[in-house]
């Protein structure tokens, strides 16, 4: 998959920047963490 196949994001990510992807990952992780904390 080459870089120019995608006009949004990159070959490795659908997000515009690494930092945006990092924040999304952080948000998901915190949602999971609180979900686990209150469920178990």
């Amino acid at each position, binding site marked *: *998959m080459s870089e120019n*196949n*995608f*006009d*949004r*994001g*990159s*070959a*490795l*990510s*659908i*997000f515009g920047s*690494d*930092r945006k*992807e*990092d*924040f*999304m*990952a*952080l948000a*998901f*992780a*915190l949602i*999971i*963490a609180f979900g*686990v*904390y209150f*469920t*178990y």
Partner: protein
Amino acid sequence: MVYSKKSPALFIIGVVMLAIWFLADAGLLAGYIEHLGGKKYKYGKELASLPLYFGILSVFVGALHWFGPQKEGEWDYYSSAVPGAMFILLIAMLVRWFIAPEVAVVSKSMGEVGNTGKHIHTILGLNYVVIGIVTGIIIVNFFKVPEWAKNGVRVSRLGLKTGVILLGTLYSAAELKNLGGLSIFMIGFFVLGSVGMTLWLGARRNIPNSMGGVLSAGMGVCGVSATVASAPVVQAKSVEIAYTIGTILLWGVGCMFIFPMVGQLLDMSHLKFGAWAGTGILNSAQVAGAALAYQPNGIETLKVAEIFNITRVLVLPIIVMWLAVWYVKREQTGTKVSVGKVIFEKFPVFVLGFLLLFGLSTTGMFAPANHYKGKYFDNNIKTEKLLSDEDIAELKGNADKVQREDQKAALARLLDGRKVSSIDDDDTLRGLANSKVMGKKSGKILKKAHKAVRHTSKKIKAFRDWITWLFAFGLVGLGMQITVSSMKQAGGQPAVIGGIVGLTKAVLSLVVVLLIVKDTI
């Protein structure tokens, strides 16, 4: 531009997931599950829920894409990733629930390898990690990733990053106080040395900075987690991540067999061998395999090797920071780079997330603060968990077979209190059970006493399951980005560099261990 495709693919994936759920729920898979391990098969609960939830989601979004109107916009762009993501998830489900257990069944039927106490699939690391990547590689090279799945493949790294953040929950800073100065010195020196040497060799042999960066973290710290955590920092390509994981696992397989032989030749003490294996071998399972191969009848070597292993994980954030600065400096040759600015602008937020959850885990929020990977010692147990009169009589009948003084004393305390009295006694009695000197029945009773005081946090177990899923998802997607041509492009340099660094570390750490480590703690 409209990104979502008018395709029945996602709808069909949903139907397949629902079919898996139905077959499992109706008991139609019972025969196959019996073959995969019966009561030991761990995924019954997952089979009863996950394919149902994700099946419904896929059918719903799949129907919207297939029959609904297509309009440009954010919903269209982000929902266009769902078909590919569900395709990867379906493959990850098949790998975790059926393919990996099947590989384990075949491997176990072949018996244990030598005196390692391990089966061939454990030694070769043929778990969901490797099988997931290989499955992805097979799909992309033999069938090609379908057009409707391409956007979804690009969310696999998001899964890996989320998994790395959640890894923080498995460790606790309370574990630091159990680590001796020796392990901190050895690991600090050799981790930083290996990273530095890999980067230097990578530059000399002209491999891309991204390849050198990710390989250095893998060779320096440990296996898959370090590789995954450092990959985005150095903009590593999928093939470079896969090469690093392959190099580490192959190197570890060789070490597992060679280390115990060298240890026997040099007549190393348990402490010396544990320190050497924990420093020189990269993968946790392979460290444990080598330690057990060296000392099959006790766990002293294993314990020391594990302590060294834990220390290594804790160095990970430092290495990630180093690589962030190193990578930017290398990529921006000619311009002056401000270290502070690089850390602020480039430092991956997801690594801060790892540190945040590591901090929360240390407070005891998810499990008692002294836990390690969710396991902790607590001998405040219910009366029914105490050893019975029959158990006590059995152990007393075989007590005279025990030769070692520390084991005799721990056994006496166990007989007296009907439960394991301390964490040290627990370690000693595990060694006694492993040595099998008291016979099979007594061994079982000792293991029962051990299980009664060793607890697993439900929260941490849930986190482990999440991490496993996110890694399985991410690695199948990662495999789907690896073509044969990209592997040819990467060439054999990573394996050569990995071999040189690994061998140097093994030899130097052996010399250091022989010179400075005493025979006993």
